[in-house]
């Protein structure tokens, strides 16, 4: 595997390879016990807000056919703690750092973005698509207008490249993608979780305490691939594709659909070493098909 060049350029940030960790499914200390974080193209952290959030009560997790539902609800220790404790720890590794940002109001997003300006991170990902919180989150992501406003607000204060993370729970994702692009988003990532629900027929109530939750895992991949494909035709900024990636060939599917990089989420909960296993499989695929760069994969796609 000597001649492969897996580098990708995400609006100026150069990743060694296209594999990143999906927000909320990676924890540097815990994941780092299983594999070498240095191998990742970038880490994307769990969402962080301007102040600590408790998240939702338990149960927070339900299993579904080929997928799962989570209702964690953006539990996080707040940006100040994060800057003090997490970023320095992440700086031990030789990988790019993308911080996922949560907020209830545009001001909250902006205040986190401002605080991140003076840190040594590479990009930030604005989560306007979390289905597990009442205010903000998905409320911003399902409205073209609100999505545009958040982007505009954060773009104005941030010195880092910003990625807007889109929700799949919309009629037309290209509309939202175009709106955030025109307000200055440097990149989009998609998809966040679908809104799902599971009922425990023995206990006769919803499995997760919050009733509904974010549905992820291999089950949702066809929706994610479709949306990446649609958004690729609608905008010119780079795309981080995610949703159900379990194998190296899944990564290829996203790249062919139009993604510049990808994130591995639920797969890493099921198999702690998934991100690096998937990277290995991607290399094997490339060898087998004679691809030397990620761009070649994309260009080989013929509709």
């Amino acid at each position, binding site marked *: 595997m000597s001649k492969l060049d897996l580098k990708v350029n995400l609006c100026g940030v150069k990743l060694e390879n296209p594999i990143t960790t999906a927000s909320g*499914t990676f924890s540097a200390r*815990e994941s780092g016990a299983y594999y*070498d974080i240095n191998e990742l193209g970038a880490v994307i952290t769990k969402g962080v807000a301007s102040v600590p959030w*408790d998240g939702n009560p338990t149960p927070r997790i339900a299993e579904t056919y080929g997928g*799962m539902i989570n209702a964690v609800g953006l539990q996080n220790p707040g940006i100040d703690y994060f800057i003090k404790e997490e970023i320095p720890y992440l700086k031990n590794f030789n990988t790019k750092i993308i911080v996922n940002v949560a907020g209830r109001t545009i001001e909250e997003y902006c205040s986190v973005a401002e605080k991140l300006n003076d840190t040594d991170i590479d990009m930030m990902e604005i989560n306007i698509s979390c289905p597990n919180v009442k205010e903000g989150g998905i409320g911003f992501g399902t409205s073209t207008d609100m999505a545009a406003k958040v982007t505009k607000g954060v773009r104005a204060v941030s010195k880092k490249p910003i990625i807007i993370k889109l929700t799949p729970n919309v009629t037309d994702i290209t509309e939202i993608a175009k709106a955030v692009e025109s307000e200055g988003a440097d990149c989009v990532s998609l998809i966040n979780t679908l809104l799902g629900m599971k009922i425990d027929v023995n206990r006769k109530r919803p499995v997760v305490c919050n009733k509904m939750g974010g549905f992820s895992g291999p089950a949702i991949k066809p929706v994610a691939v479709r949306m990446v494909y649609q958004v690729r035709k609608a905008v010119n900024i780079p795309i981080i594709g995610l949703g159900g990636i379990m194998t190296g060939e899944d990564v290829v599917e996203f790249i062919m659909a139009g993604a510049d990089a990808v994130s591995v989420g639920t797969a890493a909960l099921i*198999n702690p070493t998934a991100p690096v296993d998937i990277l290995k499989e991607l290399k094997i695929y490339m060898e087998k098909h004679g691809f030397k760069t990620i761009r070649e994969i994309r260009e080989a796609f013929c509709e």
Partner: protein
Amino acid sequence: MSCFEAKKKVVKAKIVENTEIAKDIYKIVLRAKEVTNGAKAGQFVNVYLNNKSLLLPRPISICELEGDNITLVYGVVGQGTKELSSYTEGEEIKLSSANGNGFNLEDMDCVLSDNKDKVVLLVAGGIGVPPMLELAKTIRKKEDDEYKRNRIRLIAVIGFREEPFLQRELQNYCDKVYIATDNGSVGFHGNVVKLIEKEDIQIDYCYSCGPKVMLKALTNYCIEEKIQNKQKVIPLQVSMEERMGCGYGACVGCICKIKEKDIENNCEKIVLKKVCKDGPVFFGNEVVFDE
């Protein structure tokens, strides 16, 4: 890159045995050197199923460790454990390294350090019983090795809906095993806390595992009531259960509310701890049982 060495792993383990030991209760023995290595009582392993529609790991407590073999005892309660019960000798399944903190024996050492004979009580209900076996074994071994001066009286109080299991195995290590059943079919008719009260067991240290309601009642008995009655509280460790996503600390799915002293502000605050990483074992007086 090449110098990185994983501290934790998911490995393939061969099934040595998988047999029903009571109605819908199975004992599975797995050969997995990399898992047993350094594992201890109160920790759990993530069991991954071969069924591709059931993705999440099933957390199961370590019941016994012997050489390269790890024994788990599990109840068939849903799709995953049903599937697990269908696997046969020789098949392979995936298993994680031992996760979680395990029971805290150092704390017990402190309590037992005053050189008198002491009563250590193990309280468990249903599928909370299995981890007590490795714990009993460990305490006995500790006693042999370290506490030559004073003797521990090890008592187990275990409760079941109907049919008891692991009682004989526990008898190998305990001085006394009390059994309670919900329907009175075996032993005491009622719950374990009632049984402890009835037998008026004088407890110096207590470990427990079982349903939340039981843990709550026991915490009440060992701590809250004693405080109310101005008696000495009984030190208690509880092993908590929660629905898990990853089972290794990455998803924040499995939190438990824990009271913590805020030293700066000299007050008590409530923090969220991960059952899979910071637990599953907590001190009874730390846990906020809100249900």
